[in-house]
């Protein structure tokens, strides 16, 4: 891998950003029915305008945002936890978010903040609550131990699953319908968002990603080990806590809008590490754009493949598309490269 220099950085980021923009433009035309991009310039019918503006555009924007957020978080987690299997959900954030969402529906709560729905608000609170719990439980004499973080996260996820099943078993079936899509993880929920809410989510994701990028150098030192990082002058405890809080917020935003969508946060950072190298200064922006592209494509496939082939009118859960694209690739990666080559320096 060539050393990182500003020229390589700019070219990488520019190419990926342009690729994303082009894909975002064309993804708008895909859905239950295909709209010819030519009509976009010639003038569209009323139905075409409505479908594009009201149904496809929010999905395209949110898919890119959520994909970017999850992939960046995955890259950060894999780096600071020094664990190639880490994904944004490993610390129980998705479990906490789901508990929040199901609780909101079970309790029949009606809280709307900035126009975000009750489920979204509660899921966000749940996500942050989960992180607080994980950090609180993994502290040993005032410092957070890495292996404890992961263990606490896994156990909390199990407890959350139990809580979710409990609430769902006492909840009337009819009410479950209203969060069914969300529980499966779907960009379908994006159409419920108005432009200001997408804007708020976008600002949070962009600012969060930039703040994480500012800490990329410390993350590089973390990858050498916590002791080394400390010796090299990283305030390990504070940096890691800042990373955890930022990733929790980004993951919380993603989970609360779309529900838990798997594989993006696990696979994309690995792919990007292969393509651009393990230096977090470039790995983070590459994961940002790579995640956006990956989820955008996965959602375009998920929402159109069944209707366009005439098999069924429903859309696939996007998790099916991400896992079917990402899963085999990950296995191939495991076989083709040793852990050291993928992950080590």
């Amino acid at each position, binding site marked *: 891998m060539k050393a990182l220099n500003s020229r390589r950085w700019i070219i990488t980021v520019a190419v990926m950003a342009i690729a994303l923009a082009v894909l975002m433009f064309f993804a708008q035309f895909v859905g*239950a029915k295909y709209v010819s991009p030519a009509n976009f310039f010639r003038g569209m019918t009323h139905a075409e305008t409505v479908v594009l*503006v009201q149904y496809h555009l929010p999905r395209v924007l949110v898919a890119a945002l959520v994909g970017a957020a999850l992939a960046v978080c995955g890259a950060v987690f894999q780096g600071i936890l020094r664990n190639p299997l880490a994904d944004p959900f490993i610390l129980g954030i998705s479990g906490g978010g789901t508990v929040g969402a199901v609780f909101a529906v079970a309790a029949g709560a009606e809280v709307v903040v900035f126009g975000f729905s009750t489920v979204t608000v509660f899921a966000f609170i749940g996500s942050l609550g989960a992180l607080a719990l994980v950090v609180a439980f993994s502290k040993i004499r005032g410092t957070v131990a890495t292996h404890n973080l992961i263990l606490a996260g896994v156990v909390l996820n199990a407890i959350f699953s139990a809580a979710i099943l409990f609430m769902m078993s006492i909840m009337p079936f009819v009410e479950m*319908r209203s969060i069914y*899509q969300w529980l499966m993880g779907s960009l379908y929920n994006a159409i419920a968002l108005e432009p200001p809410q997408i804007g708020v989510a976008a600002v949070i994701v*962009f600012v969060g990603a930039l703040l994480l990028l500012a800490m990329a150098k410390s993350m590089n030192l973390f990858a050498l080990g916590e002791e080394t990082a400390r010796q090299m002058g990283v305030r390990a405890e504070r940096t890691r806590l800042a990373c955890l809080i930022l990733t929790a917020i980004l993951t919380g935003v993603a989970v609360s809008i779309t529900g838990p969508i798997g594989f993006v946060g696990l696979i994309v950072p690995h792919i990007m590490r292969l393509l651009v190298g393990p230096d977090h200064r470039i790995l983070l922006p590459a994961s940002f754009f790579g995640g956006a592209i990956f989820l955008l494509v996965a959602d375009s496939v998920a929402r159109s493949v069944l209707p366009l082939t005439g098999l069924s009118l429903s859309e696939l859960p996007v998790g099916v598309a991400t896992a079917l694209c990402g899963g085999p690739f990950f296995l191939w990666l495991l076989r083709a490269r040793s852990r050291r080559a993928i992950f080590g320096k």
Partner: protein
Amino acid sequence: MRYLSRVVQFCLCIGLAALACCGPASGNPALPAPPKKIVSLSPAVTEILYELGLGDRVIADTAFCNYPADAMNKEKVGDFFTVNEEKIIWLEPDLVIDTTSMAHKAMWRRLNRAGIPVVDFDVNTMEGVYGAYVEIGKAAGVEEKARELVDSLKGQLAAIRDRCASAATRPRVMFFVEYPNLTVVGKGTFIDRLITDAGCENAVTQAGWQQNFPKELVAEMKPDIIIHAVDGSMLTARYAKEIRDSWADAANVPAVAEGRIFIVNGDTTTRPGPRIVIGWSEIARLVHPELYEQE
């Protein structure tokens, strides 16, 4: 960092440009009269539409709309969990009819904004069903017919009620709508009222539909009659036998001991539409055979 800010600017530009296109499409439209392209999002509503002679105006319905047979040939825009809103937009209907549901409110708003009017009816009571008839009839210009059908429905239900009122016994009934995970109908539902009208008493005292009802509680409630409503498409002799046999281990329940386990068509007994009188006159016949002997 200079490059970084440039990248950020680029992304923000895309985002803002996209958001700028994303304004509301139109205001809240008025109900068109009479609607010519109707989408029905409920099997009960579909049956009512056909009953009113508006079947040819239905352009799409749900995967569960199986009656009359013609309804199955219509374009499908939804199933129990999801509605494909995009598909509705493509069909350009001038009216969408749904049943009242909190979960669908946001969807109605979006359809309205796209210029498609939506009306919803709470068909969880017979009054709601009558209201749906009259309102749809009014909008489609067949109000007279709607009122006649409502009167006829009311009359037929009253006939069942009157006949069953003279029954010597009021058997205690448990009405299951799901199997093998038992879901039983409790108080306050429209089926509960129909149970009463059929000269029976609902053995379940809890309100609403009880999911995953434990079998040992059935033994405790000692119903005289057990009724299972099964989806019309699943109703076979073999399935009915399977359900009956599943009660063999509860011989201390009077309904089981006396062999009074009835398997009925859920489409006509639990779907709040025109065929409810067919389903429930059958049930009345099953629970009070003595009242129908002279026929």
